[in-house]
Each structure stands twice: as structure tokens, then as C-alpha cells.
């Protein structure tokens, strides 16, 4: 459903080109794919390429067989791509309800808006009217970001480290959120994560290291090796400790 064909992404830094994504070829066609790998490996860059926030230096990106390489962020969103940011954005003045409504893309009543918040473990009545400004905590913001993706309910949902900043107690229910999405919504889920517990429930795992795909396969094929301590893995557990 999502395909990268010879995709590279370079940035220029002090007169030299830096390769951030190196000629990636991959088909992401599972219903639940986890992308993992060390910090700086290129995961968020890959997500931004999918959402259209950045354009590849070369190569093509296909979504359901259609070439979306030159398509705008808006058009991709309307085609069914959602992206929950690693670092959610704050807005002065816009409320949680405003954002959830925009995400749903239609007029929704308060009950429906609240249901998305409850799903991510926020007491809806405390949050629905709040401004998405600096007064929200990092974890609250992260949950609202996830709720927006759920409210969109699109064919493809990409989450960038949804677990970051979510406390240990809520983490269990976060896993349920994705399990529910998997069961209820027909679409595919891509989660960028450093968390073992999320990797455990993925159908397929992709390991991105230094801008290239180091491993890609079913959970059964990839997961045991990750836990044993390959190169990516040492970085992975380190990242987990930081979290």
C-alpha cells in the first residue's frame, strides 16, 4: 500500500551534502508495521516524507499504487494519510475541541469529540475546552495528538514515538489504543517506536539505521534478534532507558 522506490533525502550542510535517507526501497503493506532503530536513524524523516512535509531528493513514493511524490501535504491527508508528530505543535487560542473537529473533517458533536479523548485516557470534560497552548503537559499533548489521528480514521496512520512522555501506568492502555485501532478501523498503522511492548504487537518490523534499512520482516523474524543485541539493538535499549 505504501511504497518507497529509490528514495533518497539529502540536506546541504556547510557546503556539503548530508545523506539522511539513502536510496530506500521498501513496500509497507502490512496492517501494523513498527519502525525502530537508533536515534538519528532517519525514522522521523521517513514519516515526514510519507506525509509530504518534506520531498525526496530523488525517488518516488507510492500510496495505494498512486504516485504521491509531488502531492501536497493537504492532498495526501485527504487521500487518507495521517501523521501524529513526534513533537506535537501548540496553538494559542485553538482548543482541543477545535483540533479534534478539524481532524474529523466534519461537524461532530461534543460526545463524539469526547469519545476520542477518552480513548487515549484523557478525562474528556477536563480537556475538551482547553487551549492547546503551553499550559498542557508534554504527555497530555502527546495523547491529544494520538486522539486526532484516531478521529481522522484514515487508511494509513503514522505515529511517531507515541509512547514518548506517556507514563508507565498509562502505557498499558496506550497499547490497547493501538490494538483497538487495529481491530476496529480497516486501515494500516505504522508506529515509530523504541518500545519493546509495541514491537511485540506489530505484524512487521522495520529497522532503520543510518538512513538505510537494516532489517525488515515479520515480527517473528526480526524481534528475537533485536532483543539479543545487534548494533541497532544497543541503541534501541539505550533509547528505552532515556525514555
Amino acid at each position, binding site marked *: 500500500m505504501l511504497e518507497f522506490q529509490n528514495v533518497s533525502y539529502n540536506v546541504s550542510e556547510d557546503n556539503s551534502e548530508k545523506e539522511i535517507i539513502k536510496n530506500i526501497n521498501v513496500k509497507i503493506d502490512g496492517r501494523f508495521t513498527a519502525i525502530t532503530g537508533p536515534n538519528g536513524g532517519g525514522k522521523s524523516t521517513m514519516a515526514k516524507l510519507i506525509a509530504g512535509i518534506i520531498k525526496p531528493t530523488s525517488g518516488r513514493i507510492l500510496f495505494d499504487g498512486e504516485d504521491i511524490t509531488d502531492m501536497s501535504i493537504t492532498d495526501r491527508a*485527504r487521500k487518507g*494519510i495521517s501523521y501524529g508528530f513526534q513533537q506535537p505543535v501548540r496553538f*494559542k*487560542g*485553538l482548543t482541543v475541541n477545535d483540533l479534534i473537529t*478539524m481532524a474529523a*473533517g466534519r461537524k461532530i458533536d461534543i460526545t463524539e469529540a469526547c469519545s476520542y479523548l477518552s480513548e487515549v485516557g484523557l478525562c474528556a470534560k477536563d480537556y475538551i475546552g482547553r487551549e492547546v497552548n503551553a499550559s498542557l503537559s508534554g504527555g497530555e499533548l502527546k495523547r491529544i495528538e494520538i486522539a486526532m489521528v484516531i478521529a*481522522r480514521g484514515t487508511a494509513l496512520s503514522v505515529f511517531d514515538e507515541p509512547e514518548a512522555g506517556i507514563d508507565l501506568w498509562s502505557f498499558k492502555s496506550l497499547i490497547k489504543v493501538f490494538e483497538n485501532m487495529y481491530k476496529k478501523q480497516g486501515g494500516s498503522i505504522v508506529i515509530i517506536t523504541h518500545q519493546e511492548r509495541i514491537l511485540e504487537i506489530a505484524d512487521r518490523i522495520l529497522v532503520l539505521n543510518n538512513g538505510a534499512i537494516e532489517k525488515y520482516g515479520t515480527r517473528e523474524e526480526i524481534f528475537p534478534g533485536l532483543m539479543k543485541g545487534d548494533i541497532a539493538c544497543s541503541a534501541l535499549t539505550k533509547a528505552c532507558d532515556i525514555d
Partner: protein
Amino acid sequence: MDEIQRQLIREIAGLHEVPQGAYNFRVNGQLDGRAVTENINIVTKEDKPGIDIIIKPGTKNESVHIPVVLSQTGLKESVYNDFFIGEDCDVTIVAGCGIHNGGDKASEHSGIHSFFVGKNSRVKYIEKHYGEGDGNGERIMNPTTHVELSEGAYLEMETVQIKGIDSTKRTTSAVINDNATFIVKEKIMTHGKQEASTDFSVELNGEGSSTDVISRSVAKDDSKQTFYARISGNNKCSGHSECDAIIMDRAVVRAIPELTAADVDASLIHEAAIGKIAGEQLIKLMTLGLTEQEAEDQIIKGFLK
């Protein structure tokens, strides 16, 4: 009142019918309806255009609406409205001015409002300015507000100018006595070649007095805005002013704070932030399926809400 005038009233005062409580409608320089209540009296001034609004001590949960509309091109007026609010009141005052200028001559309204607020009274003052009409005549509004707060009084002023005023100079001065509080929430949007200048001076004279002057504005196209905020702390007091502006296109925004502390226990703060809409905000809303223009509109709407 004709349909245009009724529409202006709806814009500035949110009124669909004659309001509850006291009111005074001024249409094209003439009195167009008035009601007084047992506690709130409205009297036409003898020496100059305008009215005195007298609110009896202890008046609670009552409101006064005093909208002004101009639909005749070329009309220029200065109107003096004085509010005398007794002790221990809790009232809402809704003012505002709407101009419809369909002609070529400038229409101009200068409202000079003075508030004398008695001890321990709470006042909410809402003022909305709005202009429309397809004529070339300018729509000009120069509101002047003067506030005097007695001991323990509280006045919150909400002032909004979102659309259609070509030129505005708004001057607000306040004298704050012991334990009294003066809050201002200003919202302004300018576009085209509009100019808006706001000038606040607050004298914190009383012990325990405080003020919070907050301005949020959006400047589009070739418009220009200036924001002066002067706060003097002459006693143990606290003052805060904040100018938060979104700038777009070729607009110009200036924020000029002036804090004067004349007492060691005066604590005064000014914050100003002027900048364009953050790129990441636009991108976030676009990933929800909004176009760039729709995203911009939503961000501004939220910002000025």
C-alpha cells in the same frame, strides 16, 4: 431603524431584539430608543452630546447596552458617555460602534467614555468596533476610555476590532486605587491599508492595586499597528502588559512598553511577541486535510477568539 442599522447592532452588540435591562441606542447622531430600570438611569447631557449612566449602589446582575451606529456617509461625531457606578455593584456594560459607509465621505465616531467605579464594585465592559460598506469613504473610530477605580473595585474591559475600520486611535487611561484591579483584553485585526494605534496608561496608585493589559492582534496586507503600554507603579502593586501579534504580508507592528516603578514594592512586567504564524502550526493543520489558506484562517480565528 432600518435593516442595515439593525445588522450593525447585531454585529457589535450581538442583539437580535431589544435587550433586557437598560439601554440607549444612538443612530446617526440621534437617540433611537432608551430604557431605564429602577437601578440604572440614563440622562442626556445638556452641555455636549452624550449621556450620563448612573447606577445605584448595590445593583447586581444588571446590564446596560449603549450601541452606536452610523450609516450616513460623512457623519462625524464626538460623544461623551459618563458612567457613575455606585458601591458594591456587579454589572455588565456593552458599548460598541458600527459604521456602514456606502458613500465617498469619511464617517467618524469618537466615543469618550469615563467610568467612575465605586468601592468593591465589579464591572464587565465590552466594546466592539465594526465597519462595513462598499463606498470609498473612510471609516474612522477614535475611542477614548478613562477609568477610575475606587478601593477594591474591579473592571474588566474587553475590546474587539476585527473588521472594517480604516483608522483607529484608541486611548485608554486608568487610575487604580487600593486593592482595585483593572483588566484589559484587546483583540485587533487590521488589513488592507488600515492603521490602528492603541495607547494604554495605567496609574497603579493604591496599595495592592493591579492591572493586566493583554493585546492580541493580527496585522495583514499593508496595515500598520502600534501598541503603547504604559504602567506606573506608585505603590505596592503589580502590573503586567502583554502584546502578542501575528504579522503577515507587508504589515508593520510596533510594541512600545513603558514601565515606571516609583515604589520598591511595585512589580511590573511587560511581554511582547511579534512574529508570523509558525510554519509547524500550518503544517500540522494541513496534515489534517486543511489547505494552507484554511489553516491560516483557523489559526487566526483561534488566536483572536
